[in-house]
């Protein structure tokens, strides 16, 4: 069959054309194409990796910031608490001091009042004694003007003395 008998001329040309085609395409087409495809893929790969690491770094940074903020907030809370405690303590102390001072004053005042009172009472008592003595003297002086009265009195007193 003619159809399945390879023709010499066509074999010759096919070998030649395919050989030249392969040589030229391999050198001027496939080499740059394959190379730059590989390069492009690599650069895309690297860019993706870079963005991933950057994102991870950003996330780490953000987490660090948050931690920092949280710790600062905690520290602030502690400081405020401490300050409050200190001020409370100071106020309490001041109150206590004022109380004791007031108490001492009151005590002092009471003591001096007692003393004043005692001395006043003593003075009144002395005055009253003097007054009563003067009064008694005057009464006596007036009563003992007549003899009979004096005698009567003496007897009364004597009776009293006897009795006791």
């Amino acid at each position, binding site marked *: 069959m003619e*159809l399945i008998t390879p023709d*010499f001329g066509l074999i010759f*040309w096919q070998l030649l054309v395919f050989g030249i*085609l392969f040589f030229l395409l*391999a050198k001027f087409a496939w080499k*740059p194409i*394959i190379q730059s495809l590989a390069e492009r893929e690599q650069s895309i790969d690297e860019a993706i990796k870079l963005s991933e690491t950057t994102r991870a770094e950003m996330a780490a940074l953000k987490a660090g910031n948050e931690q920092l903020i949280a710790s600062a907030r905690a520290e602030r809370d502690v400081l405020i608490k401490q300050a409050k405690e200190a001020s409370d303590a100071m106020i309490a102390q001041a109150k206590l001091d004022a109380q004791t001072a007031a108490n001492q004053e009151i005590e002092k005042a009471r003591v001096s009042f007692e003393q004043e009172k005692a001395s006043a009472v003593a003075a009144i008592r002395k005055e009253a004694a003097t007054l009563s003595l003067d009064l008694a003297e005057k009464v006596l002086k007036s009563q003992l003007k007549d003899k009979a009265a004096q005698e009567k009195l003496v007897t009364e007193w004597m009776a009293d003395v006897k009795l006791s």
Partner: protein
Amino acid sequence: MPIKTFLKKMYFSNIIIGLLFSFSSFSLLANEESATHDSTQAHANVPATKEAESTKFDPGKLILHHIADEHEWHFFTVGHFHATLPLPCIVYTQSAGLQVFSSSNFKNEHHEEVPYNGLVLEHGKIHAENGEHVYDISITKNVASLLISAVLLLTIFIGIGKKYQDNPHRAPKGLQSMFEPIIIFVRDEIAKNNIGEKHYRRFMPYLLTIFFFIWFNNMLGLIPGGANVTGNIAVTLVLAIIAFIVTNFNGRSTYWTHIFAMPGVPKWMLIILTPVEIVGVFMKPFSLMVRLFANITAGHIILLSLVSLIFIFENAALGIAVVPFSLFMNVIELIVAFIQAFIFTMLVSNYIGSAVEEHHH
């Protein structure tokens, strides 16, 4: 520097193609003259070849004529007008040496086959009248189509290659973005999968060349009036021989031990197994050759048969049924053009993969 030298080469190949056509363009005119000469013969729609003097239509002859190679590029015949492009004949005989002449010399003004310089063109073959052996390396229809496809491939892919070289990190544009997915497909799905990550790069230029060579020639063959290049046994034979050489020259020890002493098989079995494996070494490229040839030729035969139906029944109304169906077949053939290129490349890379495979038992 390489681009410059390449451009020179491209220019050179263009000159060759140009010469090829100018060599034979004058004879279109000559044919027209012969048509007017013949106008005395009355029957307008009778094919003018001498064996077709009876009006009987012979589809088998027509189809075989279309899928076979020829020394001139025949486009169509209307009445006695033959639109043919004569191609250069390059013939070597021991007595006359190398002869280069137009194939139109084999036809007289009545479009009948005549001997030229002691050579006769018979059934698409050139014989010497004195019976000596003729070495015929003429630029036949298939060779011309081959050269056109080569120029097409070189123009497209070197253009694309230059774009890649100029800005390798940019997104592809135009033709580049059309072929890039296919190139990546060949690389990832065919080469990497079958040959493996370690060796595939070495074979990429070869695989890409056969893939696009087969695909482009399949597509060119589908153009009406196109040549049946990949459906020619000589072309597929050369492709298969190259595949055979590439596979076996890259064979490693594992490959050869699997052929001559299959490991893990009882010794006596090797008496049967080794001859089978050796036959297999040759059968693989043989199957590549036959598969591509048969698929593409079959496609052409189907399309031509469908169209021939109209002429067999001599009924134009049949065209209403045949045209949509042949359109459907044509679309199928477009898919087949790609699939056959893919299968050929796939199988070659599979064979290469088994050849370069490393010992892993």
